[in-house]
């Protein structure tokens, strides 16, 4: 069964969910050509 501790953990996880790590968080800074993820059309090459 879920405990109070689990409820607390879920609340904290949920808060973190709203600022997930960004791919560039684990990459060196690229000031010249920074990564800017954008929802491109599905018919464009995705990889």
């Amino acid at each position, binding site marked *: 069964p879920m405990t109070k501790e689990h409820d607390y953990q879920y609340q904290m996880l*949920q*808060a973190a969910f709203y600022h997930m790590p960004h791919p560039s968080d684990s990459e060196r800074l690229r000031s010249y050509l920074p990564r800017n993820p954008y929802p491109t059309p599905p018919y464009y090459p995705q990889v």
Partner: protein
Amino acid sequence: FDDPPGLQEKTEFLLREWVQLYHAPSSGRESTKAFSQIVYQMNMQGILKTDDLITRFFRHATQMCVDMCYRTLNDQAAMTPTMVRNKCFRTLDAFVRLIALLVKHSGESPNAVSKINLLNKVLGIVTGVLLQDHEIRKTEFQQLPYHRIFIMLLLELNAPDPVLEAINFQVLTAFCNVLHILRPEKAPAFAYAWLDIVSHRVFIGRMLAVTPQHKGWGPYAQLLIDLFNFLSPFLRNAELAKPITILYRGCLRVLLVLLHDFPEFLCDYHYNFCDVIPPNCIQMRNLVLSAFPRNLPPPDPFAGKLQVDMIPEIRQAPMIQTNYASLIQPPSFKNELDTYLNTRTPVTFVTDLRSTLQASAEPGCRYNIQLMNALVLYVGTEAIAAIQAKGLQPNKQTITHSSHMDIFQSLAVDTDTEGRYLFLNAIANQLRYPNSHTNYFLHLILYLFAEANTPAIQEQITRVLLERLIVNRPHPWGLLITFIELIKNPTFDFWSHEFVHCAPEIEKLFDSVARSCA
């Protein structure tokens, strides 16, 4: 406490100075020129005089970096996420470079001790600041500064550099210790960043591929167990709201990479992982159990007339990194178990088994699952050893009429439906790639089906196998072999059982699984 007067101001001055030096065009290769200048200034300020002062310096510097990030994150006026990050990372990356250079140059190379001591000290400080922040800010906590410090420090200290290579295993161990302290159960608001670090390609590569003699496998397995332990209560209760689902899918993604690139790692640690993956996370467990050593690709399970006993590897015991015998507690119970296995006395040992395995009266957690899993694997491996000691191999004849089988038949007959379900799951968790355990346990589960004194046992065996078969791929080789034998071998008279026809969906399921197996 007891900071020397002016330390905070000195720290702020030195940090600002360093950020300027680091970003200046004249900073030189790997910031070496800038580093000489800042070390001179730190010396002038007396910071490097004692370990205590260095520690205090890092404590203040970390706090200042974190505070700067919070200010920037809270003041996102007209800034895109990329701009906010650039602003934060401009200071954080400089701070990380300073740490990396101080670690690399502290003490005389190749004296690793002072380097690693300093690294552990700094990692400990950042961890302390994070946990305190996590405790105070609660849902306002932001993972960004800590995530950046840890991941960039990991990348800096894993650069191809002879001094760093010489201390690489100690560096990785330091990070594993910190990640274990910051495991999701302890810092749930850092969980996504935590898995981002654990799943980073450099970390995976270093821990599982580069570090010699698989020394990184154990610590990495522990981190995955930390993740399973955090997810377990939510998954077991099917509490799959989006925040959990994202973490669950992230976990699946990591396991897929491990299945593809490091299957031997999953093979070695399958027992540990299945001990903590909840019984209803069937696909995740199948993913772990489907791993096989790349030099032992299993034969096609659907090739007709496959003679399992004729596969050479079926005699070899798989590597299992866990001392599962030590998990059989209390020691008095283990002694009684060994006595029974060796002498088949006292008979009461077998009749008392169920009560020993029961943990509570609460439905859904009546049984000590870890003890059940350890008991099943231990008794099975003892049975294999006893059979092979006679120069035989496990098969439907050699596994019967033994103290080991007494125990298994007792667990099949005497436990209630929950206990039997967990017992059968413990057996099914050993149905993997061709090895002596898979061989023994597939004969065991088929024997229990054939010798069952009530249809309920046969029904539950079927249920345990079927629920593992209907999930999306992958499926463990041993599971497929067992089910094919069950439905094809007329000895088991499988299709005549009532539970096979209990509902149209079930009948359809059996047909489709049988067809795909056929």
